[in-house]
């Protein structure tokens, strides 16, 4: 009897100690579902191939802003933030779009764009980092990938299988439709509201981890909210209202006790390497 009791105690201890390290939101999830969540190389390849089609169309819409120096600078800032993103399986690429409209876009696979118009509104490097971090957030959270089901096996993968080894003709209709859908999300309908709020949160986290001032995103949004007209047309229709975003970010910072007095702004470097050329 004593032995049974001992066994039960040991079992109980073992059992309550074996809770999964990262905890699951859903307690019914069994261990094999980890296999699903593991994205394989094939999935990332499919994501990149899809993303570059979307990226090409974003560039086609506005054109690439050609200043090489600015381009390199934006990539340095973006890479510095992306280092802490947890998506080390892709190479993030950043670029500036040649348009006065104020917005930023990202495509799966790590293609991040910020418009010339947006840069003109910024006062320091931290704000640039904030906007890039928000877009990196969409890529890290895989918002478009999840929404459209981009992966190597299953889903609408037939088109991808052909792309990976096929010819020009094989970029099938299904693939084109997905790309068009992604563009629609970016320019017409916007991401899901929750995805936008999550990207804002990811931006704050990335800024804090990399060393930038985490409130930079609030400063930027406040400035943009004061501008109205055609420049913010697309931004307004694809994102939740500024007041709500700012409020949620402030709550997020407060609830997580994120220090707001640390973190750099790098105003001078921003002016010298970027603003000077853009304005």
């Amino acid at each position, binding site marked *: 009897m004593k032995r049974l009791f001992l066994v039960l105690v040991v079992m109980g201890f073992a059992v309550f100690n074996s809770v999964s390290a990262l905890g699951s939101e859903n*307690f019914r999830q069994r*261990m094999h579902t980890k296999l699903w969540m593991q994205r394989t190389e094939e999935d990332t390849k499919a994501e990149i191939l899809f993303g570059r089609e979307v990226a090409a169309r974003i560039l086609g819409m506005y054109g690439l802003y050609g200043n090489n120096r600015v381009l390199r600078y934006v990539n340095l800032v973006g890479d510095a933030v992306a280092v802490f993103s947890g998506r080390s399986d892709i190479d993030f690429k950043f670029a500036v779009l040649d348009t006065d409209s104020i917005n930023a876009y990202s495509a799966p696979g790590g293609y991040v764009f910020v418009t010339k118009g947006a840069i003109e509104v910024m006062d320091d490097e931290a704000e640039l980092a904030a906007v890039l971090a928000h877009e990196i957030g969409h890529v890290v959270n895989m918002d478009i990938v999840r929404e459209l089901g981009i992966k190597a096996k299953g889903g609408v993968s037939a088109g991808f299988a052909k792309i990976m080894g096929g010819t020009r003709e094989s970029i099938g209709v299904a693939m084109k439709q997905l790309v068009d859908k992604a563009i629609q999300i970016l320019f017409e309908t916007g991401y899901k509201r929750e995805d936008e709020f999550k990207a804002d949160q990811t931006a704050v986290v990335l800024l804090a981890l990399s060393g930038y001032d985490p409130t930079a995103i609030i400063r930027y949004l406040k400035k943009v909210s004061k501008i109205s007209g055609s420049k913010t047309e697309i931004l307004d229709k694809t994102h939740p209202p500024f007041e709500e975003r700012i409020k949620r970010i402030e709550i997020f910072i407060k609830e997580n006790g994120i220090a707001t007095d640390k973190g750099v702004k790098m105003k001078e470097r921003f002016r010298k390497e970027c603003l000077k050329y853009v304005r």
Partner: protein
Amino acid sequence: MKVLYKILIFVLFVFFYMGFSLADEYHYENILVGGRAADMGGAYVAISDDPVGCYYNPAGIVYSMGTNLSVSANVYNFSVKKYKSVLTNYKTGERYDWTLFSTKLIPNFFGIVVPFGPGKLGFSTAVPDSTFRDQHQTFYDIKSVYVSNPIARYIIDIYDVDNMYLAGPSYALEIKEGLAVGLTLYGYYRDRDIIRNHLLTLKDGQFEWSNFRESFTELGLKPILGFMLSPLDRVSLGLTFSRMFTVYRSYSSQTIYRGPSVYMNYGLNDIYYEYSESSDKEEYPYKIAAGIALFLSESLLFAGDISYYTKTDRAEAVFNIFAGCEVYLSEKIAVRLGFYTDNANTPDVSGSSVNQKEHVDLYGVTGSVSYFTRTSGTTLFFRYQYGVGEAQIITGSTAVQDLEMQSLSVGISTIYYY
């Protein structure tokens, strides 16, 4: 005298018929349905988070992982019913058992679940019961009821087929966080065909021959209403109500008999023939099942269920319990173990009546091992049932025989996520 003859007529030809029936009628959990559920001893009412949930607790399918799922299970089952020491060799006194074998290869379950509207839609088919016997046996030198005229040779042929199929849709909805409700509406089809042929040749050369045939077809509905509640983190409770309703039943039986002339006063060309038909509907019991599951971690799961079937005209109330656990050894491999009871819905056999139904309480153990990939899981399982009880196989006699039942199922079930 006439009455005695009537009794004698039936003594032999129903010798091995009246005293027993197919196992299915007396037990409710003969073949556990589905992959993971059966592997865990059928303790699935509080889990049911995959297509198999359509059968156990439709509320659970709303918690299925992934977008679309399909499950299929195929079982090979071998069952034995052994009536012990039923026949006696009049020369040597040796006792013989009479054994019934049943083998079946059945597609035990198939189901899919897809998201639909605010909840999940499922469709499944199940074969919860199936019997197939095809046997031919011969016994020699058996004691008979005619003390001075034993049985030189006794030939028994049996051909039994009895299948039940369920198919239908399910729908589940989470009405608020942690509370789900679901409904499965199965249509069922049951089909039985039995042919029994006996030929007894007595020592003095006389013979007795009987051929009995019974068949029926039944159509009906089996709705299953389920609830699932998660009152605490990692704890799930389930409750289901179900019942089979017969909508159509067509029954017929035929008996052909010719008895030994000396005792039966039969003329050379006399034969007894009886045919009957009925469309009376079968009465099935209500079933209530409740379960609890503890999802202790993503690798350890314990579950326990209890089920209750109500009393009917033909059957007693039955309680059964089920318990199971599932352990993931890695992301790719899981093992399961389960225990369950499958109690008889017949009363205990007493020594003072005749023609009682057999009573055997069965106990089962199940186990399986699964291998998972990104899009599928394949499971190899075994299920074993055992029980010892009593039967009164000889019509009109108060003698009680020991009955031992065993059943072994092995099979493969697969699950696909897409």
